[in-house]
């Protein structure tokens, strides 16, 4: 890593000030230090934000739960109330990395984490996302890459939590300057959809404060498929949530992860599921609708059948 200054901030405002435009926030540190060790990131100052007051709580609420940005992924995994109310979120948390990572990784950091594309992460490759000219994955090794993108970069967003939170229509509250800016998960990643050099919509200095998850009576599920049984990035993941009235789905949301530079949804699929009774054919049709605009590359078309399987699996778990 390049040398840097280090400071612990005691308020969001001073965190922003201390970071300035050459600094980065240090929460769990897994993603940031990894980038710094490869000289992909070279901040002049690291601002430890783990002491910011009040950001490390999971607060149940009648209308919405609030999850502070500094809540660890391990805490999300093991919180009994969360497991009951938002099972997809707890399940998504349980699959993040390893126990050692979950113990330090934070909700905010997990949402803000950068691409894992092996070209992006390679110290000696200046790919499109790093300001170079070429998306190497497009013509190269792309078995882990996106089926959907709004631009040339095909590296997928990899936050497990984002996929589940999208299914809950959560809102992320960000401090930008001295304003609190709410963003839905789609808004949080929208800039990555259009812009190859973006990982998400955060501007330098933006500080994630908390996530608000609406507490409707929803069932939910999260599943992922990796090459290994544990401690492995998802090839594809899927989170679903819906209200179930009688045996009909209401307000279903189906989200795919690791297939796009955003947690991917198709309005047509969500609309289609409205009022449906869940069975294999319904699940498969929803999958067709979600995958309609998929564009495979030389090595990643296999993600489509996996997506179909996970969509079906996740939806079937809603039957209870």
């Amino acid at each position, binding site marked *: *890593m*390049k*040398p*840097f*200054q*280090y*400071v*612990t*901030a*005691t*308020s969001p405002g*001073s965190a922003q000030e*201390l970071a300035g435009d050459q600094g980065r926030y*240090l929460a769990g*540190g*897994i993603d940031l*230090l*990894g980038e*710094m*060790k490869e000289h992909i990131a070279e901040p002049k*100052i*690291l601002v*430890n934000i*783990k*002491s910011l007051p009040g950001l490390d709580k999971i607060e149940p609420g009648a209308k919405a739960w609030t999850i502070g940005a500094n809540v660890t992924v*391990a805490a999300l995994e093991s919180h009994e109330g969360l497991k009951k109310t938002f099972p997809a979120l707890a399940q998504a948390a*349980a699959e993040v*990395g*390893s*126990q*050692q*990572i979950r*113990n*330090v990784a934070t909700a905010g950091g997990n949402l803000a984490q950068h691409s894992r594309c092996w070209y992006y992460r390679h110290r000696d490759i200046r790919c499109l996302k790093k300001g170079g000219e070429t998306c190497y994955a497009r013509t190269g090794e792309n078995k882990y890459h996106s089926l959907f993108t709004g631009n040339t970069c095909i590296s997928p967003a990899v936050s497990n939590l984002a996929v589940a939170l999208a299914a809950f229509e959560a809102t992320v509250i960000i401090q930008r300057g001295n304003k609190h800016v709410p963003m839905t998960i789609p808004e949080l990643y929208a800039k990555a959809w259009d812009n190859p050099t973006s990982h998400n919509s955060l501007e330098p200095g933006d500080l994630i404060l908390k996530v608000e998850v609406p507490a409707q009576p929803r069932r939910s599920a999260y599943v992922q498929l990796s090459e290994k*049984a*544990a*401690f492995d990035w998802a090839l594809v993941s899927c989170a679903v949530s819906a209200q179930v009235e009688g045996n009909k789905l209401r307000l279903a949301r189906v989200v795919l992860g690791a297939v796009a530079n955003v947690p991917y949804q198709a309005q047509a699929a969500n609309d289609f599921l409205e009022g449906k009774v869940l069975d294999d054919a319904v699940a498969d049709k929803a999958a067709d609708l979600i995958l309609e605009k998929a564009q495979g590359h030389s090595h990643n078309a296999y993600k489509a059948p996996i997506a179909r399987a996970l969509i079906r699996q996740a939806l079937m778990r809603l039957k209870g």
Partner: protein
Amino acid sequence: MSKANAPDSASVSRRYFLKGFGATAAAVATARVEAVAQELEKANAEKIQGPEAVPITLQVNGHPLKLQVEPRVTLLEALRYHAGYTGAKEACDRAACGACTVLLDGVPIYACSKLAIEAQGHAITTVEGLAPSGKLSMVQQTFVDEDALMCGYCTPGFIMSVTALLNKNPHPTADQVKHACAGNLCRCGTYPRIMQAALKAAGVSVSSKTEVISYARLA
């Protein structure tokens, strides 16, 4: 730490001071004193350090460890190369293998991905701290008894993960052991006996069908 890098306390106080306006005079006077006190406390907490080496104190295995390290030095590097605690190993330096696992306030983390400077104020436990008087801990002894190791390089990391698991959950299932230890890699392939050792340490005896049979008996 050089003074040149410390924020100018006068300017900091002034910067935060300006935010304290807008109350009655008396209240303002009291509030002002309190605000200044708070802001000075904050300024001290928000002391910018580095990039050159700064003094830090780490609590390692119950003892204070005073070092002079740059902010970019990781906890693993501090332990191994600055303090001679070579139990935790550097095998990947990328939060991917677990050989550097130590406990921070009893919780397993990758020491390679924690800055030494931010590990201050936490209780750090390394494998050396499990047997302070020389008598192996129960987990360590069970690893020996079940031969849950071969080359031994991944072993301290596994022992920390299993120790932490059993401290939190004295009676884990096999699946819980897997979940707790999936972040530790072993290239020699000692996993089956690590599982056996972890469950045995939890009081569950696992029968293994492994046996040595004399060929002559079969003929």
